[in-house]
């Protein structure tokens, strides 16, 4: 029995080592840095400054503005992406719809194409008035052009639309997979019982997808909260800090302005937020319980 236990331990050992090395150690190190004054002017020789960095953040650091931005970014992206993905999955799940596999194959293309290249493409598309979005598409639809340099609203529209394009196929695929795994008989029985399409949706579809939605929501919530590439590439957090999230700001503090300790403090604050929120959601939905 002991041999068996030891044996099991070997299976789990790699992931533990990797986690310790690549997550736990760096996070503790970052936490440590956040209590020092490590930065350009204290590069090799830095000292402890206590909560100084945190005080700076709360006193000068645009904390509330960044929190608001992060929430706009995360919630705005998630709601639209998940909604779009869910709607498309439902549409594709209609058995009497012809050409489903063709549409499916076309609609997953944005996900299949390398994300960071797509971002660079979108950056070009959004240039006002020379990018194709502002030159061709929006005028064709009689919509006003979008210029992230001249308006904060425009900047958010640009960011969230781009993020939707990048991510809706993922949600579509996941929800479609889940819909496909619902036994068809359930619907047939409900139909015999005289339940209309809406009732069937509420009674069968939604409950069956509860787990998937919860799981996808948590992973995507954390991912979007921590995702800095779209903002960094498209608006750079601008105008000013109007579209700057915690992570983008932390990244710029560290890699553009060399304020390593301040960046670490921002990262710590951001992490606390996302982890507490995620844990509350995990707890509420009891999503991990259903998997173990």
């Amino acid at each position: 029995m002991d041999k068996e236990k030891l044996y099991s331990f070997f299976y789990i050992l790699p992931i533990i080592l990797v986690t310790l090395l690549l997550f736990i150690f760096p996070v503790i190190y970052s936490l440590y840095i956040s209590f020092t004054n490590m930065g350009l002017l204290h590069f090799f020789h830095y000292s402890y400054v206590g909560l100084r960095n945190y005080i700076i953040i709360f006193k000068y650091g645009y904390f509330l503005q960044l929190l608001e931005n992060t929430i706009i970014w995360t919630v705005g992206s998630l709601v639209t992406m998940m909604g779009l993905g869910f709607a498309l999955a439902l549409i594709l799940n209609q058995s009497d719809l012809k050409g489903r596999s063709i549409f499916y194959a076309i609609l997953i293309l944005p996900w299949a194409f390398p994300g960071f290249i797509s971002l660079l493409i979108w950056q070009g598309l959004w240039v006002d008035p020379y990018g194709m979005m502002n030159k061709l598409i929006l005028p064709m639809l009689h919509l006003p052009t979008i210029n992230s340099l001249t308006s904060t609203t425009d900047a958010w529209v640009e960011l969230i639309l781009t993020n939707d394009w990048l991510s809706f196929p993922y949600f579509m695929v996941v929800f479609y997979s889940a819909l496909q795994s619902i036994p068809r008989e359930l619907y047939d029985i409900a139909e015999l019982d005289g339940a209309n399409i809406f009732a069937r949706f509420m009674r069968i579809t939604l409950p069956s997808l509860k787990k998937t939605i919860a799981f996808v929501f948590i992973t995507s919530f954390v991912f979007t909260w921590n995702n800095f590439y779209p903002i960094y590439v498209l608006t750079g957090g601008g105008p000013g800090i109007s579209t700057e999230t915690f992570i983008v700001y932390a990244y710029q503090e560290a890699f553009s302005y060399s304020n390593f300790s301040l960046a670490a403090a921002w990262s710590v604050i951001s992490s606390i937020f996302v982890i507490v929120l995620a844990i509350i959601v995990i707890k509420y939905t009891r999503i991990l319980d259903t998997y173990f």
Partner: protein
Amino acid sequence: MSVKRERALSKTIVAVIAVIIIVIVAVGGYYAYISTTHHPSMVTSTTYTTTSTTTTTTSILNTSNPQALMQLVGLTSPPSTNVTITVWNSYSTSENQAFNETLAQFEKEFPWIHVEVTYGVGVGTSQFETAAKAGKAPIVYRDTSDSGGALFAAGLVLNLSQYLPPSIVNLYLPTAIQDWELNGSLYGLPDNINYIVMFYNKHYVPYPPNTTAQLIQIAEQVNKTYGIWGIAYGASDEYGYRFAAWFAGFGGSIFTTTSSGQIIPALNSTAMAEALNFWYNLTYNLHINYLAPSTGAGGAEGQLFIANKTAIIFDGPWDLNAYLQALGPNLGAAPLPVVSQTGLRAAPFIGSTGWLIATPQASGATQMQIKAALIFILYVTNYQSDLRLFQVAHDIPANVQAYNEAIAELNAGELQPSYLNQIMEGILEQAKYGQKFPNIPQMAYYWNSFHQYASEFFANKINATQAAQGMEQAFIQSLVQNGLLSEILPLPAMYALYLAFILAASVLVVSTYPLIIKLPKW
């Protein structure tokens, strides 16, 4: 079973949160205590005990002769084993043509020095800092004088004054070499002088505007007649490098010195508000300026200029080749105009790019490698190399001899193609109307403060006065945070803030604890 699991989960969660918060509060509180007893020291400028190797210097230093170069760094003969030095190079494509010739020449003359070059590094990159932190920085690095100054203040690059005789500065133009001195120490050797000028398309612009009134008039004319942009200047994408010229033209200066000798920011002035409003007017009211999202030959500004879709841009000679290829004889260059309201010239930063050597702590270099690196940076900034850079890529030489030679060629009208002579004249004339590029460490915190509020201003979020106030405040805050300005917070206030933070953290723990333990079932 499920209850048990639930409890296991609760325990983990509580453990995770509790550990995070407790660690933060405990460590923070502990150091808060420590730091109040040992107050964080303000700027401790490290003074180096100068042990400069006194070399027997002949009256005129010769950095073109291999033997003389070796003597300069205290070598009489090549070492028995070969030396490898790593070099990060930030040249543009055309500059690299010149550099590669120089490199081939160098390797022929110094067969015992092997040079490993990394191409494609951008200037002002944080990559160098990250690498330095790990002791993996390149031994030799090329950067601008201002970010070089920041690296020097950080202790990442060598104080060359300790290694080279003081007379070395005579090899370079005073304008160039002064950009590489901080507190009397030399931290790099310049290979060019750079600043922005006004490039214009002669096809659209009848004569280079000498005042902003003329600038507006010409731009409006171009706009009306040809239906293209008069000017493409992405003021909202600015970090304040080019805007500094306009700020100066409206009578402003970035720093001022207090009576006690402290250097403090002076962005909050009517000059700033007026300069911002000037460009706002051209952009939003007169519609003659395109608020470009990116700068340089590769950015929107340069692309428009190359595609004949804007008549005027502000850019530096480092992009000259791209414009020369596209516009040919239609390309014109002239100094930035006089600001009509004030009668002052818009005065761009006169900066310089040059070569630095990383400290052994940053790069892990041996003494012999440092010597080889010294030889290398002297060599790539010597007369022949710098002249080559001028001839191939049209960089303005920083080496006195090369500069004189370039001027002589220019005066004799010897540049090819012939219209290049006039363009270079325009570029060189700008040097008369520049301002010194501050390379004090404070400068590192100017860029982002400016950028944040200028871009909010151009996005119609705030007015010019608010922008000027905001950027000044942000600048001061960054300086205070980095110990470059004395603490504004009085100590009792510090205590109160520590206390408030710890209190808030405890409230967070206490309030979330029951929530985590007893959550309603879904």
